[in-house]
């Protein structure tokens, strides 16, 4: 697979050594010269001539450290590896690690586990499938869209193929913007056909919807707010900015052979005009990056993905960060200012990660690896004994890992995964897969899918708790069933009760029990009472699955 594999340990250690030496020399030199030279611009691409992974991570860490110093916040400590791999699995595959995978991880050297886990996930189709679904929400929404001419599943599966091959992200986005042909044979065309409104008089893709998607999903700017009128309350955009951008999609047309570049130019009637007039194709910022020649959508794609159009890199960094943390660096996820100001500076890390993403040719897997290696991602969401618990301020400045409620499909995926000792992935038996998707679909409906509102932090609801306490999915997955359920298998195969409790905790919460918990549940299992051991084991599963810890990313 063309993903970025982990370098051999020896090579890595040599490299690390080189970086440490270089950093040391750099520090000395910069101290010597400090008095009489101007400080270098903060975000200069030339700083990244060498693709040194660790350096990028260090720079991000430095910015966060400065932020914490400035705000007077003492960050949390590093979380343990199992906590980190749970975060990664939830963010990238929508489910928790299996017991078998945890065992495999624990045979790896301690300092390599997180990156090893990422290599493992990148080779697993679940990752590309899940990432594709999450990105697709921003590209085409969650609904089924226009009948016949829109195939969402095909679109998502095409996107998953692209992610699996780790195709450069700028190339993927270009394919979407310039897509031509049939929605069946060229699945990327669905990005365009989803906007066709079959009830309107105009037959063809909707330029306005496309322009809104492009600016929000790819550039993290919300120009669509001025589509109806100039905003006199001080927004930076004018109405014409939006319609001139929409005009790039004007010629995209629907024909028997699919989407073609044969339509009429885009026309719009501004308020002061009598008749709709043809709108020129002009980009709202950095016009120098727009190629002069070419078909309109190709020119637009070149402009959007241009390495100097930093909005593109920032928007992607922000979205990937949000997938991994459950919360974007800049909120909302699709609105990032084009310029930072002293009053409204960019959050730590954003510019460095954007630079790294550009320099490394929009490599999504590398971006994920860099973020996973930062200190901010590795922080615990709680404080050790003796320290004051993290405050909302800690969460806000990333001085502790922020809690976020799991999405419905993550909860469903986790329940089903916790009932299996091995990873349930695309290779699993067809019956398992079928079982998983049907149960999952029903569960998600009841739990309440939040659709495109991706990153709202909300508390839990009563229907969710009823579903978890009394619903059939949990009931089926915890009951005594030696063939289907891990609960029974653990009970049947673990050498003693302490191991039963440990394996159950690992399978459900991806951690070992505290001494107190182990004590409580080992005693509960061995005590004589009105329940047999199988029932007690089901009850242990029930308690773990119904905990806050299970339903939240932490």
């Amino acid at each position: 697979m063309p993903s970025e594999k982990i370098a051999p340990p020896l090579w890595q250690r040599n490299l690390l050594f080189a970086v440490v030496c270089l950093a040391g020399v750099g520090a000395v030199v910069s101290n010597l010269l400090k008095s009489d030279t101007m400080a270098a611009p903060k975000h200069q691409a030339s700083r990244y001539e060498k693709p040194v992974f660790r350096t990028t991570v260090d720079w991000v860490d430095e910015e966060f450290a400065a932020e914490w110093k400035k705000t007077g916040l003492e960050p949390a400590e590093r979380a343990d590896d199992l906590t980190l791999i749970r975060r990664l699995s939830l963010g990238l595959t929508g489910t928790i690690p299996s017991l078998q995978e945890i065992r495999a991880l624990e045979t790896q050297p301690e300092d390599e586990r997180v990156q090893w886990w990422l290599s493992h996930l990148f080779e697993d189709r679940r990752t590309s499938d899940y990432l594709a679904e999450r990105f697709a929400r921003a590209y085409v929404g969650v609904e089924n869209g226009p009948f016949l001419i829109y195939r969402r599943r095909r679109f998502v599966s095409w996107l998953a193929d692209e992610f699996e091959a780790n195709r450069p992200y700028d190339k993927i986005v270009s394919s979407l913007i310039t897509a031509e042909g049939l929605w069946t044979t060229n699945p990327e065309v669905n990005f365009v056909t989803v906007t066709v409104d079959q009830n309107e008089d105009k037959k063809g893709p909707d330029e306005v919807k496309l322009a809104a998607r492009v600016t929000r999903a790819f550039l993290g700017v919300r120009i669509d707010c001025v589509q109806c009128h100039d905003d006199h309350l001080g927004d930076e955009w004018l109405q014409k900015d939006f319609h001139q951008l929409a005009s790039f999609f004007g010629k995209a047309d629907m024909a028997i052979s699919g989407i073609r570049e044969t339509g009429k130019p885009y026309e719009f009637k501004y308020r002061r005009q009598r008749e709709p007039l043809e709108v020129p194709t002009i980009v709202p910022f950095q016009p120098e990056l727009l190629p002069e020649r070419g078909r309109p959508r190709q020119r637009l794609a070149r402009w959007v993905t241009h390495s100097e159009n930093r909005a593109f890199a920032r928007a992607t960094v922000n979205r990937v960060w949000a997938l991994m943390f459950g919360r974007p660096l800049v909120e909302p996820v699709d609105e990032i200012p084009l310029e930072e100001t002293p009053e409204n500076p960019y959050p730590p890390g954003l510019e460095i990660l954007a630079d790294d993403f550009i320099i490394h040719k929009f490599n999504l897997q590398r971006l994920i690896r860099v973020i996973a290696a930062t200190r901010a991602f590795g922080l615990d969401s709680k404080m050790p004994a003796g320290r004051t618990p993290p405050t909302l301020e800690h969460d806000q400045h990333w001085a502790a890992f922020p809690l976020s409620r799991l999405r419905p499909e993550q909860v469903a995926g986790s329940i089903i995964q916790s009932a299996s000792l091995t990873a349930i992935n695309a290779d699993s038996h067809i019956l398992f897969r079928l079982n998983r998707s049907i149960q999952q679909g029903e569960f998600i409906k009841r739990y309440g899918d939040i659709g495109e509102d991706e990153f709202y932090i909300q508390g839990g609801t009563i229907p969710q708790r009823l579903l978890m306490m009394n619903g059939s999915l949990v009931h089926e997955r915890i009951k005594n069933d030696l063939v289907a359920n891990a609960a029974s298998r653990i009970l049947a195969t673990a050498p003693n009760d302490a191991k039963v409790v440990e394996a159950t905790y690992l399978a459900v919460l991806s951690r070992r029990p505290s001494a107190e918990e182990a004590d409580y549940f080992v005693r509960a299992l061995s005590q004589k009472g009105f329940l047999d051991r199988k029932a007690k084991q089901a009850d242990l599963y029930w308690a773990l699955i119904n905990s806050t810890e299970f339903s939240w990313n932490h």
Partner: protein
Amino acid sequence: MNSSSNPCNSNSHITRRTMLQATATGLGGLAWLTPVAHLLGRAQEKASAHAPAKSVIMLWMAGGPSQLETFDPHAGKTIAGDTHAINTSVKGVQFAHGLPHVAEVMHELTLVRSMVSKEGDHERATYNVKTGYRPDPTLVHPSIGAVVCHELPDAEMDIPRHISILPGQWPARGGYLGAQYDAFKVYNTNGRAGNITARVQPKRLDNRLAALKQVEQSFARGRRADLDAKTTLHNATIQKALRMMSSEQLNAFDITQAPAKTRAGFGDTQFGRGCLAAIQLIGAGVRCVEVTLNGWDTHANNHESHVSQNAILDPAFAALIRELRARKLLDQTIVICAGEFGRTPKTNPASGRDHWPTGFSMALAGGGFRAGHVHGATDPTGAKLEANDKDSIRVADIHTTIQHSLGINHAKELMTPILRPMALSDGRVIKTLLK
């Protein structure tokens, strides 16, 4: 081009970012839920003369019924096809022939025949009619039931105050008020709401809850003391769920207690049973019940489909009005029977009618709404109504009028999670619809 996508309600793109700074530290958890009310509040409309209504029943006609085959027949005209009209209990007012029972209670209804909206897509139009706002990519507006629950808090109820029976594809939502204002969905009418019965005996449930407490203690260590109360609501919600599971108010879901004769009046259908359950729930103190009847999207064979749809709606709607009246609940309950839009006056080649947001009907009853009143008319030749025609009523106006009738100040602004203040509704009170 299609200018109906991504509308943008004008106010305050500027306030958002500025306010983001001002309130950034308070953004955690659910802090934004506090109504930072009354910003820029217009003077409250003069309170309606009699006691305000307290609750809402929404009969949701999913798919969009044809006004011509229900409340606005135009019999004898080309656009009617072969639909003929029947008299109602109000002189001079006629319905299409499929609704004889509802025709008998027309004297209790306010009928609006001049509804106008800009949304011709099912999802967008459903959003529009349920919330009073057009879809906005930056935030989700709350449905009428969520607004009512938020604005009219009341004595502790064990069961949810906002319920959707037989929910369709887009049930009522809490939107920016939070998921706790979402309608509680009931997928059957067998008397038991889903998942409210524990799978195990009480003694064993106690064991499970004790075990859960152990795990929760462990998670709470090293975290904020108010994490559950302010952010996750996890254990707080479990307590509420447990209270609901053992509440006597659950009996309101069970319609088998009603006399057989009463039940029969609603028709032997899921929808009919849902309507009776709605009455019992309102009687028990629930604020808003939505009951959905699917199947109105008649792009083919419009007339035949409306015969079968009306056969379900007719007895249920009529019995609902009669039973609310008999139980003395009609004056305090606003009933709305509506779909997301109407259907085209012209039939298509498949003998169907397509989507028609420019001139459709909505029936209302109870609360402060007039009895036996008809508002507006559509063109007998099938021309579109325009939003600025004299008698046209926009969807937002209906919401504002309903809120007014409930004693809610519709101009009150709530702070949304994107820190943009938003009025509860932005229409006009249509005084002529009210007593």
